[in-house]
């Protein structure tokens, strides 16, 4: 049973993907402290390394047309094992939602509203997101992707031009002088934390209009915009801050503190804060929506909206208990998450694709018309 029946256009999907990736520009501190001035190389390596992962996602969806991630799990692994795997995905999506909610709370608290209680910042965001998910659904959430993406790109390009006077190209030197493991570690973080988080789009790829013809084009387009933004931000921060980048919890924010148009028009970082809060709100709402429809699918609910509020309360409390402080969060983002996230982002989709292919090969090798009938859950012509 499909929970979400609404359709979105390819362009909406593309800008949602790019918006989702652009919202992660806050998290550059996870990898710039490792690869320092060569972080842009790590971003490029991660972009290349993500292409086969993206291919797995797209092949998985294309080999099961009209099905979402949870229906595919049921079809490939059977009803019980499929549900268990779907529950693992759901808990992963829940964790991602809480993590991003926590990131937004930390960011707003540290930069703009330092005297506002944390619970108020997170509570307001969750109320707005719950309203969006409950009353709007898929079309409502993706509607503003284009506006957010263009605004974000404009601000990144504008601030890059404005900081041009403070850039020093010597900050990139010497290049390629770090151990290979450093690049691999940094690229792994970039691969798992912003890029492969695109797995959260798998439950709705089948809701795209004409998914057969244009899915690849729009998903690659969204990834290209998001990846280019991350690369541009990393290059700009390296050129401006150099090796001091790893002293800051938010290098991009520190770069923008240095922008000053005239003596009276300074403090441009508020522009960055504005667009980052907007993008993070989009990302949190998207993740929240995916968590709710995943929960509804696993629990076999007919209408996901009945679960919006209780799941929202769980997400809110989970964001408080995830990490005791920002340092523990950053340490986990560097040491644990790049490996732990691989299970849901790379291993499970790859295994699903592989098992589906093997089942298809076995079925096509059987003589047609004879023998026992295939189980109902595997009776899909797409195999």
């Amino acid at each position, binding site marked *: 049973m499909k929970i979400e029946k609404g359709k979105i256009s390819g362009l909406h999907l593309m800008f949602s993907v790019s918006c989702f990736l652009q919202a992660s520009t806050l998290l550059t501190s996870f990898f710039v402290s490792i690869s320092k001035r060569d972080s842009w190389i790590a971003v490029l390596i991660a972009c290349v390394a993500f292409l086969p992962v993206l291919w797995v996602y797209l092949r998985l969806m294309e080999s099961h047309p009209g099905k979402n991630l949870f229906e595919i799990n049921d079809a490939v692994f059977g009803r019980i094992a499929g549900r268990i795997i779907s529950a693992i995905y759901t808990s992963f999506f829940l964790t991602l939602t809480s993590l991003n909610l926590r990131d937004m709370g930390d960011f707003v608290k540290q930069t703009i509203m330092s005297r506002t209680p944390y619970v108020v910042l997170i509570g307001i965001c969750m109320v707005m997101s719950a309203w969006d998910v409950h009353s709007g659904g898929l079309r409502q959430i993706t509607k503003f992707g284009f506006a957010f993406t263009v605004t974000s790109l404009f601000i990144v390009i504008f601030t890059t031009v404005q900081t041009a006077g403070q850039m020093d190209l010597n900050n990139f030197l010497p290049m390629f002088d770090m151990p290979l493991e450093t690049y691999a570690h940094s690229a792994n973080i970039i691969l798992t934390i912003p890029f492969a988080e695109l797995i959260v789009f798998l439950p709705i790829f089948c809701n795209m209009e004409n998914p057969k013809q244009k899915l690849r084009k729009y998903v690659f387009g969204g990834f290209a915009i998001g990846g280019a933004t991350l690369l541009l931000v990393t290059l700009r921060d390296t050129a401006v801050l150099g090796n001091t980048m790893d002293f800051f919890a938010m290098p991009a924010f520190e770069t923008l503190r240095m922008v000053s148009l005239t003596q009276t028009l300074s403090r441009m970082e508020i522009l960055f804060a504005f667009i980052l809060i907007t993008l993070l709100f989009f990302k949190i709402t998207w993740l929240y929506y995916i968590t709710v429809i995943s929960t509804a699918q696993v629990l076999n609910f007919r209408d996901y909206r009945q679960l919006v509020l209780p799941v929202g309360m769980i997400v809110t409390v989970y964001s408080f208990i995830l990490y005791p402080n920002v340092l523990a969060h950053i340490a986990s983002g560097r040491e644990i998450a790049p*490996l732990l996230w691989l299970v849901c982002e790379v291993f499970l989709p790859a295994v699903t694709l592989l098992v589906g292919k093997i089942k298809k090969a076995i079925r096509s090798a059987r003589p047609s018309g004879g023998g026992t009938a295939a189980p109902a859950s595997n009776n899909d012509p797409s195999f």
Partner: protein
Amino acid sequence: MIFLIFIFLAILGIDLPPLIRSRNRREIVVYSLVYLFALALCFLYAAGVEIPSPVMVLGDMMKSVGISY
């Protein structure tokens, strides 16, 4: 704590009428379990009970077997 009770009553007020009207007993039972889980989690946190973070627990387990950077 009073604010939390108010929030959970409001959630019941929003979600329960359509569930009862649908007369789907299974969905009512499952919804009640999710609601009670959220309620217990929120009240434990508000009461200052230390709830272990699953991500930190998994991280410690991975570190103990040497799977980490």
